[in-house]
């Protein structure tokens, strides 16, 4: 019996388990999935929790609902990969040998990387919204906050879902407007990027939206530390930004398991061929999703598109054929902009987000780089699509390769 091991049963691991079990013969191939957590989190939903739009129960379901029959599932921590011996060590000592390995252990926030961040104000006046606990704690705080300085900060690049802090700022603007206290809330968006976003056209469109909503952008701010006494964030070149409440995207790193395996870069992401999605150092390892170092967004939509490529190339590798499928870095993000509207951007390694319509040229229904109600419904629908289509590895009505049709350059 030959063995495939999938590490992580989040977005990517779950999709791969479903795709592979469908085609690989059960008498030949044994598929094992490992994850420490029995709960699947719908992470895009975390964004809505601080504003009371979703609660904890809206974003969690048992992982077992999404994993196919005929796959061994182990709910245990992964200690490390021993790539030279082709085996994985689990916490508690179990050893899993493999013929092929898919690493999909994602990325997480690492507040310990920033001095003063996880100190006395953590989850009291300093919050993340990248964990359920952080998002729920912020919900409790916002409930009876009467206003002051709200600072939204990004600590380091790259971080997952690059539009999330922008969306958070837009939703905060809408939330405090609806409460009638927007004039008492001063919102600043403090980022290490030179503007609202990296890609020029999107940066301009999003920058204008921030201005329209009276959200101040403080660019080129590279966070060194958080001062809990003075309540300021400080950059390496000694700028200070004062806050009453700080919502932050802390440094994102790959799982410590990657470091223990000696397979990560300085942020614990795994060096991966950006086209074939094969590990740069080990032929029988593929890296899917946020765990890799490929230069595109760390986002669920990317994981979904990339899973097609990993799947095809893994099947080729099994049959000893050359790896023909090439990933183009396709990313597609709905951007919630508040007041029931949204925007959408679609791009890849070579093409920056452009205006136009999506997915059908000239028809839409979604407007690229435009602020419309229809785009907002796209985001709302996404949760349903995520649970019912995406995780199951079913066909989606969107091509995995980006298309220029409908775009205006």
């Amino acid at each position, binding site marked *: 019996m030959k063995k495939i091991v999938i590490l992580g049963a989040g977005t990517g691991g779950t999709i791969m388990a479903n795709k592979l079990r469908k085609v690989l013969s059960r008498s030949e191939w044994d598929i094992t999935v490992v994850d420490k957590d029995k709960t699947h989190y719908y992470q895009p939903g975390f964004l809505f929790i601080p504003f009371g739009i979703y609660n904890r129960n809206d974003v969690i379901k048992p992982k077992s609902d999404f994993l196919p029959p005929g796959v061994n599932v182990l709910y245990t921590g992964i200690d490390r990969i021993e790539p030279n011996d082709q085996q994985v060590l689990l916490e508690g000592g179990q050893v899993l040998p493999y013929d092929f390995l898919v690493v999909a252990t994602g990325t997480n926030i690492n507040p310990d990387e920033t001095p003063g961040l996880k100190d006395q104000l953590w989850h009291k006046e300093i919050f993340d919204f990248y964990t359920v606990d952080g998002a729920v704690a912020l919900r409790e705080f916002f409930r009876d906050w009467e206003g002051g300085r709200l600072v939204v900060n990004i600590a380091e690049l790259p971080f997952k879902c690059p539009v999330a802090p922008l969306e958070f700022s837009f939703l905060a603007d809408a939330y405090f407007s609806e409460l009638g206290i927007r004039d008492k809330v001063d919102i600043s968006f403090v980022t290490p990027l030179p503007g609202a976003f*990296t890609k020029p056209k999107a940066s301009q469109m999003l920058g204008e939206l921030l201005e329209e909503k009276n959200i101040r952008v403080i660019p080129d701010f590279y966070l060194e530390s958080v001062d809990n006494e003075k309540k300021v964030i400080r950059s390496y070149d000694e700028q200070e930004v004062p806050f009453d409440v700080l919502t932050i995207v802390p440094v994102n790193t790959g799982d410590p398991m990657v470091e223990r395996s000696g397979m990560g870069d*300085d*942020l614990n992401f795994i060096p991966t061929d950006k086209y074939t999605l094969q590990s740069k150092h080990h032929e029988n390892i593929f890296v899917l999703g946020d765990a890799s170092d490929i230069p595109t*967004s760390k986002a669920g939509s990317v994981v979904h598109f990339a899973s097609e490529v990993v799947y095809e190339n893994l099947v080729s590798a099994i049959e000893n054929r050359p790896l023909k499928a090439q990933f183009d870095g396709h990313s597609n993000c709905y951007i919630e902009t508040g007041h029931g509207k949204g925007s959408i951007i679609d791009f890849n390694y070579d093409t920056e987000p452009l205006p136009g319509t999506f997915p059908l040229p000239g028809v839409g229904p979604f407007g690229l780089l435009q602020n419309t109600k229809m785009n907002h419904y796209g985001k709302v629908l996404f949760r349903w699509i995520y649970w019912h289509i995406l995780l199951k590895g079913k066909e989606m009505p969107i091509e995995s390769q980006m298309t220029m049709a409908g775009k205006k350059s």
Partner: protein
Amino acid sequence: MSQKTLAGKTVEVTDEGYLQDHNQWNEDIAKALAEEEGIELGEDHFKILHYLREKYEEGANLTIRKVGKSGFTDIKGFYKLFPGGPLKKASKIAGIPKPTSCV
């Protein structure tokens, strides 16, 4: 893209003034580029410039954090040596392409 004469040598540069071909670089060109940024290069600067070039040639993703872990300086020191945008300025002076922050 345009041509430019730096330290007596004609080189190709991008619209933003980054060298088109990092092989056209030498230490005198670095000094000329640094002068445009208002920086006078010393030994500590050159250690970082050579480190950046080496990592670039290896195909690594360059980040401020990575330079901070290089052993040649820490992040604070990097900001002191190349004030403003240290990675952008140091990359330009090192003759390698503008760093892309991918998100």
